């Protein structure tokens, strides 16, 4: 492999990593901060992709961004209301919404499982036109993704500093405290999931326009891929303030993509992506638990060998 090719691969990994990092940031808010595992993420990602593609197709590339985010907010609102107001377990609420979104997404794409926006104006083509003739013209996709991630990180950081953001963090950090405080956990959960799903929708929209197509499977397994990225990021930049941890989440997404891209070069079948992300999530979540069990295991083994000696 020569250098330009490697750089090219790196750039693609960076672009895709940045786009998917928006979903990672969504999980950073819902999973890390609010302590809710939002299993509607897959469907919401596809929803963002479908809405983004359809609105762009109708000739509104900029509006497509906000439409996708708005759709994400509605999806998040539904998931949140199911779990806070209607007594449905939070994991189940996510799965139910995810299932329902499948039909909705097909309907949005005009009763089709795929939609092509090859010749449509998107935020990327707009940026391409804007940068034409400048030295940056080769990086138009990267710049779009960078701008989106930068804006989302700034918004997220500022948001988590507000009183509402602190209340959301407390809801995830100590539910006991929040229950007997003047914070209404129903309210914080609803707001938290709405904001998170807006980011997920945005992420889906940007990927669809990047790929110049949306399909019903575009978001499948996204929640595991994003969780894997989140946990990788936590391993590198897990401590410290919110901005640092948010950047860690983006870094995790990039590292995940990079490893995946390199693995593809070495002839790993593309279909292995999801298996790899599953393994990463299993290791990252179970490692601390297994580590805590280690002393007990050692004692058990020690006792057994003593018995043998007796």
């Amino acid at each position, binding site marked *: 492999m020569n250098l330009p090719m490697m750089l090219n691969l790196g750039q693609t990994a960076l672009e895709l990593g940045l786009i998917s990092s928006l979903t990672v940031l969504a999980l950073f808010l819902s999973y890390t901060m609010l302590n809710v595992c939002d299993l509607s993420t897959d469907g919401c990602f596809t929803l963002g992709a479908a809405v983004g593609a359809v609105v762009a197709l109708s000739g509104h590339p900029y509006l497509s961004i906000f439409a996708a985010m708005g759709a994400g907010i509605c999806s998040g609102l539904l998931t949140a209301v199911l779990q806070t107001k209607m007594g449905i377990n939070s994991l189940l609420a996510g799965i139910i919404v995810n299932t329902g979104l499948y039909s909705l997404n097909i309907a949005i794409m005009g009763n089709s499982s795929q939609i092509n926006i090859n010749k449509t104006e998107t935020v990327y083509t707009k940026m391409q036109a804007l940068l034409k003739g400048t030295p940056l013209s080769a990086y138009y996709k990267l710049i779009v993704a960078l701008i989106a991630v930068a804006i989302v990180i700034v918004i997220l950081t500022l948001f988590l500093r*507000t*009183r509402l953001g602190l209340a959301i963090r*407390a809801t995830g950090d100590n539910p006991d405290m929040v229950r007997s405080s003047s914070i209404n956990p129903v309210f914080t959960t609803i707001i938290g999931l709405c904001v998170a799903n807006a980011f997920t929708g945005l992420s889906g929209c940007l990927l669809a326009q990047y790929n110049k197509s949306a399909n019903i499977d575009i978001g499948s397994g996204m929640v595991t891929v994003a969780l894997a990225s989140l946990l990788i990021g936590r391993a590198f930049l897990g401590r410290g303030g919110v901005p640092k941890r948010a950047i860690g989440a983006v870094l995790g997404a990039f590292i995940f993509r990079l490893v995946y891209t390199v693995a593809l070069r070495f002839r790993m079948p593309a279909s292995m992506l999801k298996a790899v992300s599953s393994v990463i999530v299993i290791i990252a979540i179970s490692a601390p638990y297994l580590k805590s069990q280690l002393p007990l295991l050692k004692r058990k083994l020690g006792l057994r060998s003593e018995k043998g000696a007796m």
Partner: protein
Amino acid sequence: MLKLIGVSKTFNPGTINAKTVLDKLSLHVKKGDFITVIGANGAGKSTMFNAISGSFYADEGRIILDGRDITLQPEHKRAKVIGRLFQDPMRGSAPGMSIEENMALAAGKGGWLSSVSKADKEEYRERLALLGMGLEDRMKHPVGLLSGGQRQALTLLMATYNPPKVLLLDEHTAALDPATAEKVLTLTEKIVAEGNLTCLMVTHNMQSALEQGTRTLMMNEGRIIFDVEGEERSKLTVEDLLEKFREEAGKKLDNDRMLLSK
């Protein structure tokens, strides 16, 4: 100030496990009262606090706070005017957030989208300094790094940051070592006195139940069986209290912790 009128609560009603934990309980707390509450295990002390703070809704009766009927008001709304501390020091603050962020939550100032200003931070620092624990120099540290005593002191400060109409202390020093418990108790007295707060405190120490505060309640089986204040209270001894309990409840006081700490 705070009135409980015929408040009842039964857990698991209509089943074999039905248990009446509050039995037409009535109580009138006057402004500025510092009430100590004693009673056997399961007498309904914490349950009474739960009813007042809204952890559950009373089956019957009414709860009036400062002229407003709060019987069916949700817990988080009541929490704006009712401060509460639990026995578990881990319950009252968010471990993954910094001292400063916890204080900001307690202060609850400004709109939902406002953030902590420099002036706010200065105020948190001043308030924290009052605890005399050096927490004012550790504002950025996560609360999870504090000791139980420090956390309980912080929770006390948070619960009284905006002076509540009623402060409920549910054996808030019971899980601390004796020296720390003493310190937190002294702080409590100071904060309650300075803010002229109305306060109810459950304790298992009969001696301090008589020494602290202005009024003492004894509970048994979901009722208040003895309510004493003023001169009559100042003459009471622990032996009198135990005698009183036998008289009223017709049995011996079976709170082992209470007897041990006599």
